[in-house]
């Protein structure tokens, strides 16, 4: 199963249009701004969201650190980045 790394809002849209529905998504960098707009189920790199002042209160949002990010990467293949 593919893991999708999303680096901005336009990238999220491109990803959502093209992923398999069950593929997990990690929001990173400016991709974390998506938390203030949508409530898709996803992982989010906690330190990138915190840096930007974004708090996620959605119950489908799973904050992760780099260690958990590495674990997701080993559990999925390939890992595809999106940042249109």
């Amino acid at each position, binding site marked *: 199963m593919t893991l999708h790394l999303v680096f901005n809002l336009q990238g999220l849209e491109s990803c959502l249009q093209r992923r398999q529905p069950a593929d997990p998504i990690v929001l990173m*960098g400016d991709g974390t*701004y998506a938390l*203030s*707009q949508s409530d898709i189920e996803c992982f989010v790199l906690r*330190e990138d969201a915190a*840096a*930007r*002042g974004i708090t996620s209160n959605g119950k489908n949002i799973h904050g992760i650190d780099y260690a958990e990010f590495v674990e997701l990467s080993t559990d999925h293949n390939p890992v595809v980045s999106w940042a249109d």
Partner: protein
Amino acid sequence: MKKLLFVISAPPYTSKRGTAQLEAAMVAAAFDAEVSLVFRGDGIWSLLPDQSAQQVGQRSFAKVLQALGDYEVDQLYVCLDSLASRGVEAAELMQAEGLDLAAQQLLLAEQDAVIGAAL
């Protein structure tokens, strides 16, 4: 004394252009220009409170923004259309006066120069 408008349309922390824009605005104020600043597009994310930039090893945009006051740069504006299209309420942001597109049109028309309209 020229009227200079600084535009911030990129989000903070990925590129560091927004911070550099603030620094340029402070220098302009120190040079006695009449300075105003407008946040639009993804630049509006710069105004989220509670940024913790030290987590990613950067200076906090919010701190640089506060320093603007020391330079008497107090004409801070935010584009209401950019907020609406991102589902953000003005009340969630640090203080900046909301401007609709017509008001931005007037603001632009009275400038001597616009800096970083592309940032």
